[in-house]
């Protein structure tokens, strides 16, 4: 019974963490789907979202209004950052070899991670956010659910639902799908490729910003390198689900969150990084197209 309780407990924690990874992974997968670029700076957008919400929440304290404001400002800030990164750094390289764009993304990433450390109001020290318990723990027999985990899960599910609505039913979403299918042909059909790519970065960055807020509510410690690990894990999630596939990123994120909490709970929290990258190497060796990805053949 003891073991069963522990498994259920870890399962709930894993779903909640996996939801955050899924949000970030969606940004990777959409961007990769459309410009074939691993946006290394995506994790750092999460960091920026987290810092924005941190400043809002420490200034105004915790109440529903400040939470909403933190959420909104983090999303807006992340969107502005993501779109301007794309316009200044990635757009000039859209027709260069993919490796060049990847190297640029690494450059943007280490720039974003280190520049804020220079400013005294952010600095290089860890900052802690005192997150209150929003309401009492919910208990079912031996199983306790911590409210923030539940909130995280609900928020991520709502955001994913919204994303599906946007991608499947809006005009911009349709343009996104068209451009990711064939950029040249959609340009010929009168779709503005630049605007669509910007829109994709905006959507992805919005989710990363939202993910950043949820991330610090769950793990309330900030520094400017905080985006690296969740970013890499979410990337693994995107690959696991099949890069370019939106439902794939969601499934991949959840699986990765579960894998991580179970590793922490039953083996050792030190090994989560090794397990995550082990998963990546295995999936790339045996099914590089991922769970829901489409297998692409190389054309000459």
């Amino acid at each position, binding site marked *: 019974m003891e073991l069963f309780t522990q498994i259920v407990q870890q399962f709930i924690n894993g779903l909640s963490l996996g939801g955050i990874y899924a949000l970030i992974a969606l940004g990777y997968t959409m961007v990769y789907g459309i410009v074939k670029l691993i946006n290394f700076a995506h994790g750092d957008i999460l960091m920026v979202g987290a810092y924005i919400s941190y400043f809002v929440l420490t200034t105004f304290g915790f109440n529903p209004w400040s939470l909403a404001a933190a959420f909104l400002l983090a999303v807006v800030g992340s969107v502005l950052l993501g779109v301007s990164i794309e316009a200044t750094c990635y757009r000039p390289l859209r027709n260069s070899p993919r*490796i060049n764009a990847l190297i640029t993304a690494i450059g943007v990433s280490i720039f974003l991670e280190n520049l804020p450390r220079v400013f005294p109001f952010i600095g290089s020290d860890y900052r802690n956010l005192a997150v209150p318990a929003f309401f009492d723990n919910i208990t079912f027999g031996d199983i306790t659910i911590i409210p923030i985990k539940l909130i995280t899960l609900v928020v991520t599910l709502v955001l994913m639902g919204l994303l599906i609505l946007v991608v499947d039913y809006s005009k911009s979403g349709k343009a996104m799908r068209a451009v990711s299918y064939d950029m040249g042909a959609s340009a010929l059909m009168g779709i503005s490729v630049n605007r669509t790519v910007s829109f994709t970065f905006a959507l992805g960055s919005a989710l990363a910003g939202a993910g950043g807020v949820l991330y610090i509510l769950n793990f309330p410690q900030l520094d400017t390198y905080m985006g690296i690990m969740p970013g890499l894990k979410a990337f693994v999630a995107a690959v696991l689900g099949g890069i370019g596939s939106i439902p794939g990123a969601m499934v991949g994120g959840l699986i990765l969150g579960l894998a991580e909490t179970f590793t922490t709970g039953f083996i050792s929290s*030190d090994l989560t990084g090794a397990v995550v990258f082990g998963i990546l190497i295995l999936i790339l060796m045996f099914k590089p197209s991922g769970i829901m990805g489409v297998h692409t053949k190389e054309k000459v």
Partner: protein
Amino acid sequence: MRIFKNLSLLGGLGIGLFVILWALISTNVIDDYSLQILCMAGLNIMVGLSLNLISGYTGQLALGHAGFLAIGAYSTGILLIAHVPLPLAIFSGALITAAFGFLIGFPALRLRGDYLAIVTLGVGEIVRVLIINLGDLTGGASGLRNIPGFAQNIMVNNPAAFLWIFPAMFLSVALVANLIQSSHGRTLISIREDEVASQAMGVNIFGMKLMSFTVSAFIAGLAGALYAPFIGYLAPGGFDFLRSVFFVIVVVLGGMGSLTGTVLSGLGLTFLQEALRSNAKAWGTAVTGLFGGGNAINLDPMSQVLFGLILVLLMIFRPEGLLGTKELRLTQMFRRGAR
């Protein structure tokens, strides 16, 4: 005849440079501090060369060379602490790294482009995590201490290190340069230029990539093996992703596919990084003063900010790096001189 000329020129240049540098060191024109940075630059150049071989010439971007460096350094460090003779320990460190590269290359090199980059990044991270978790063997997170140096007397460790590092660096340059000139090297370049066409011409792509990757791991491991007795203390934090990115910057700035470029940018970036690091505090205080005091501005991350900027600007404005694929060729220089 041409090979003989090549080798004698290369050897002559190496011995000449060595004699000059050694004269400067023994007359104390290059002081102990500069010598230490010079040795560090030598090691960085070696890793840069090894990364250029796989990324610049073979076209397979690898982001985990800090992991190779770590394996070489830790194996040699552990062997030295176990009283294995220095030359044997260094050579074993490089060989262990090469074997590791071979084993990793087997699954990883089936992947292409950005997937390979991510997997090598992942391998580098796994190496670091394992080093932290191996406990007494590697000293865990607190690091491996008291590694015997090149010299018994710690005061002359840096000159002793130079006696090892300079020849090792020079031989690495010669090894990579000759490999690139050989038919194997041409094959590697053909893989970079067009994998499918190269395969159609009958090139065993996987085998060649694996060869390139293993040689690359060997050189990076050798640099690591020399690093352990040079510094005497290894901490896993020093072998993180940022370290791997530093080597990428060395290669990209010098030019992917230019050995001369790697040597120059390896030297330049090591000194730049050190200059920024050692001046960060003073400049930070000065800048804080400009803004009328208050919270101290921390300029330690300055070099990373600058490196990020260098990468982005290079890729946008000069993706071929400073030298592109140009080389300083000794034979050409002398032939031109004769005319």
